[in-house]
């Protein structure tokens, strides 16, 4: 394993630093409090699709397992319950078992911002304002990625997940699971021993995602409820209040109107913990204290998670997250 100092990435790296400064300025002007949070936690929110990094704190013969946080959510929501108000975190997050690729790093920079008293509709505007603020600071009107130029300060496209599947994948009904499986099988996808969420995700990545954000930045919203278990359900009974932002086919941000119902959260925890066990993932302690905190009452709020490195990559005109790193090392796998 070789560790390399890559000063040829200096320009792109500096762009990232400038963007971090602009990010702090934006949120300070909007009266969001910056949070400095631990990266190690003794317990985590169980998430069936993420693997975590495990480490051990040792003192003589005693030891305690600690886990690198895959997102700062568990800390932030506790603070929201206690009444901290609008806040954000800009720092590292860790996801294991994701081999490095142009859009994935096991150790990456995440921006999460939460605003109370609003839902995801408000956050669509807030996110656009944030991206346009960064662009203005960079004196950049366009993002150029893989020979595509996308104007930022323009009308952003908005479409529902249902519309996107109908338009790009020719699947009219995504909510009727049987019909969805039949249609996917006709298209040649392997549908045996597959969950709706996995199959949905596969068709989405193959047929929908490459079209998103190509003509203009695109907000895709209202996901089937199974794909947004931590979001508020809509009254239609089939979707949840979740949106994602895409620019040039790259997923940049994910937003929920946060689920405030602790009973539903608890159910979700149990299901995910069970799934983790079944899949042989690291058996970390479940953060039941998180549920206790929610019981006290999470205020109505919406939160956005931004893949900050990906955003910086687009602003730097790079095509891989590696091109932003001053220090890199090759993994053996």
């Amino acid at each position, binding site marked *: 394993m070789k560790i390399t100092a890559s000063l040829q990435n200096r320009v792109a790296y500096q762009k990232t630093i400038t963007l971090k400064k602009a990010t702090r300025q934006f949120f300070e002007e909007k009266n969001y409090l910056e949070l400095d949070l631990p990266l190690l936690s003794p317990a985590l929110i169980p998430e069936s*699709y*993420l693997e975590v990094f495990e480490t051990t704190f040792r003192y003589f013969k005693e030891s305690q397992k600690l886990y690198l946080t895959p997102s700062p959510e568990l800390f932030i929501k506790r603070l929201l319950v206690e009444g901290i108000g609008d806040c954000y975190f800009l720092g590292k997050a860790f*996801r294991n*078992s*994701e*081999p*490095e*690729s*142009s*859009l*994935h790093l096991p150790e990456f920079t995440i921006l999460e911002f939460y605003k109370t008293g609003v839902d995801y509709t408000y956050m669509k505007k807030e996110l656009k304002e944030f991206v346009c603020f960064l662009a203005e600071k960079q004196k950049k009107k366009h993002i150029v990625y893989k020979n595509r130029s996308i104007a930022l300060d323009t009308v952003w496209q908005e479409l529902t997940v249902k519309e996107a599947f109908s338009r790009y994948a020719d699947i009219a009904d995504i909510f009727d699971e049987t019909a969805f499986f039949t249609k996917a099988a006709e298209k*040649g996808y*392997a549908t045996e021993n*597959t*969950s709706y*969420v*996995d*199959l*949905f*995700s*596969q068709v*989405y*990545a*193959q047929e929908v*995602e490459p079209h998103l954000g190509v003509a203009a930045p695109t907000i895709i919203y209202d*996901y089937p409820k199974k*794909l947004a278990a931590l979001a508020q359900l809509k009254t239609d009974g089939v979707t949840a209040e979740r949106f994602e932002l895409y620019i040039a086919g790259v*997923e940049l941000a*994910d937003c929920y109107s946060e689920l405030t119902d602790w009973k539903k959260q608890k159910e979700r925890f149990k299901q995910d913990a069970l799934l983790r066990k079944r899949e042989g993932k690291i058996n970390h302690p479940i953060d039941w204290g998180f549920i206790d905190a929610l019981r006290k009452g999470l205020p109505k709020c919406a939160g956005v998670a931004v893949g900050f490195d990906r955003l910086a990559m687009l602003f730097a005109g790079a095509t891989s997250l590696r091109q932003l790193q001053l220090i890199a090392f090759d993994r053996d796998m």
Partner: protein
Amino acid sequence: MKINAGNIKKGQFIQKDGDMWQVQKAEFYSPGKGGALMKSRIKNIKTGKTLDFTYKSSETIEVLDVEVIELQYLYKDHESLHFMNERTFEQHTLPLSQSGEIVSFIKEGDKLFVLLHQGVPIAVRPPQSVRLKVTQAQEAVKGDTVTGAKKSVIVETGATVLAPLFIKTGDSIVVNPETGEYIERVGKQYQ
């Protein structure tokens, strides 16, 4: 051999929809909405067509054991290409339907890398370039100096190639056998 799609690698041969494909690109992708995915670009061995396909990384796919050996190209008949292993003198045939464009650019006696699956040829691995003698080229018209202008020339295998105007009969040129595109002229000293 069955493996998880999450483990496919560039260069491997896989089976999909009853055809054999070679993996040209395989990149891990985690959408955060479901299980991890493998975004791949695969090339059909028979048709040469490429396809971008997203696999679930947990999906099982059949990886084919493919052996690459150097064979001598003997001749072509109306349905196949015939090859010989120079060490064992064993002969192999590859249907023309699987040989791709390369058939227009190979000469009898050429040594080529052939892909074998269970001892049967499935494809020829095209060399990056082939060197061919021009057997027929019209003289350039004087004064025709348009940069990048091309003309058709015929090479020793009988194929037609678009080449620059300065190419003459008797020149040797380098051609990409996969696309049939002219690459460069071979300098006299190298011929």
